[in-house]
């Protein structure tokens, strides 16, 4: 892999992981009834619409979120992992459900029981951290894109 391509992948992978962590931290502040800033709410609103877009397998051309394209694809991947064995459309249904649930949280500015949401963001962020490490350790291969699905074409 070219150095610059690798750097680009690493940067966007890490940024998406940090973004997912920011969402967890914002929810934590909300749950502890700490003062929640506009930035937290803006981030969570972005997450609501990004989850919705992912549930419809569509992109968000006007998204202000960095790596929004990557988010859609990674979100689908995480949702699929979380719904293994539950049927073809379970991943899309989960994303739609998470979007609705998070939408409610943002609207009510209240976060009490959101294990599913937290689990989703935590899984996404763990996966991103592992992917960052992979890119870092395996400069010769496109580690996080050359997963089984890519190999499946060969």
């Amino acid at each position, binding site marked *: 892999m070219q150095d610059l391509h690798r750097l680009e992948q690493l*940067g966007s992978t890490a*940024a998406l992981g*940090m973004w997912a962590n920011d969402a967890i931290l914002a929810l934590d502040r909300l749950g*502890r009834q700490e003062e929640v800033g506009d930035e937290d709410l803006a981030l969570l609103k972005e997450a609501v619409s990004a989850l919705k877009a992912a549930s419809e397998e569509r992109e968000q051309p006007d998204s202000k979120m960095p790596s929004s394209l990557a988010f859609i694809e990674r979100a689908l991947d995480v949702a699929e992992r979380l719904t293994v064995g539950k049927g073809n459309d379970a991943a899309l249904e989960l994303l739609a459900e998470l979007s609705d649930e998070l939408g409610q949280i943002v609207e009510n500015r209240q976060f009490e029981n959101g294990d599913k949401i937290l689990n989703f963001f935590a899984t996404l962020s763990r996966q991103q951290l592992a992917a960052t*490490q992979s890119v*870092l350790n395996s400069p010769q291969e496109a580690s996080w894109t050359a997963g089984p699905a890519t190999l*499946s*074409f060969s």
Partner: protein
Amino acid sequence: MDGGARDVELLLARIKQEISSLKEDPRFKKPADGKRGAGLYEHVVDLIGSCEWRIERNNPGPESSPEAQEAFARTLRESITVLGEAQFALPWLIATRSPNVNLGSLYMSEELTEILVGKDTDLVIVPDRKFMYSTISWPFSSTIESTPGFTRRTKRRPIVVHYPLSDSDRLLLHPLFAHEIGHSTVYKFKLIERFGSEVMSDAAFKERVRDEAGRVMAELSPGISQLRLRRELRENLRNWIKELLCDLLAVEAVGPTFLWAVGSFGLPLNRSEPTFTHPPTTLRIKLILDLLERNGWIDFCEDAAPEIMGLLREVAADATEKLGRPWDFLRDEVLAQSDWLRGVVSERVGDQQLRPVVGEEAKRAADLLDHLILPVGPDECPFKPRAIMLGGWLHALRDQDSPEGLVSVQKDRRLQDLVGKAIEMSTVLTSWEHR
């Protein structure tokens, strides 16, 4: 536990160390405002600032939930990696102080950057030990932009272009820089996102992806879910579209020289082999020729090098040969969107497009080169840098119109020195005129 007090103490110490090692490195020197490298320097400063901002704002403390503490630790680990990678910027900053690439080529590339991306850019061209051209724009921007509430200081977009060390003086290949700079255009103007909303969101397109994923699953990958295959197909199509947009932006900006440079550099490396990131060269050359035809350049190309055009037409004709699954699907989708591709690049470059009328200037430049005269044109109205480059190619192909000649033009160092020097002088003369 991840994110426990000791873990966080360790991570914060490492971050502090990464930041100070960058800031205290003697190579990390601030260039004067507006000079080459100033945008890149500020960009790295922004990266450091965004990491510090995020850490300060987000440290959840011991009273927070274990999930939050773990999330904070993961952010710290990501930050350490990104800050470590920022060391990449040090050799780039050195390159801005003493450019290795031919000065004429650098001037022309800066002009192309202004045409394709805009004025507020900071182009850094760096030789690379690897045998390939590549680029990155706003190298650390994902981290900076994803930091809630952080406002970056620099508005000047750093663009880094790598070229093979062997090609420093092979100026005739440098129209390839236009493709690399085109990546920044695609990024800045969100052209891939536009493709997503204008093409990929169409119900008929979704249906075709669904069908193809079904066929791939049945024939090649029974163990992989259709959802995952659809994701892969979309991602691969976006990759191809991105590369083709860059090719066509380059054609708009530098005309036939891009075709010849691709034939000379790219065709010997790849002819019909698709990859997940790049379409086969057959398809690339087909779309390049189609755009040159639409822009009125084809007769010029035929007159300049009929044999080479024969070769390139043969390559383009093979673009519709069977490639196998899923490549045929990707190729057919690209061909179905060729009007969209041409429309977008033409709209983007607008009246800065290199038009065939420049061909006359290029012929005069080539005539001067026939007599080993610097092809700079009259002082009061020097030839345009892009016309000089085209003149260089015309001169080179006059007695080398063959597949072998397409490659061996790179050997003529004297010609390429003259072309570079003439572009340099033309740029300086024009700049004086403007002042």
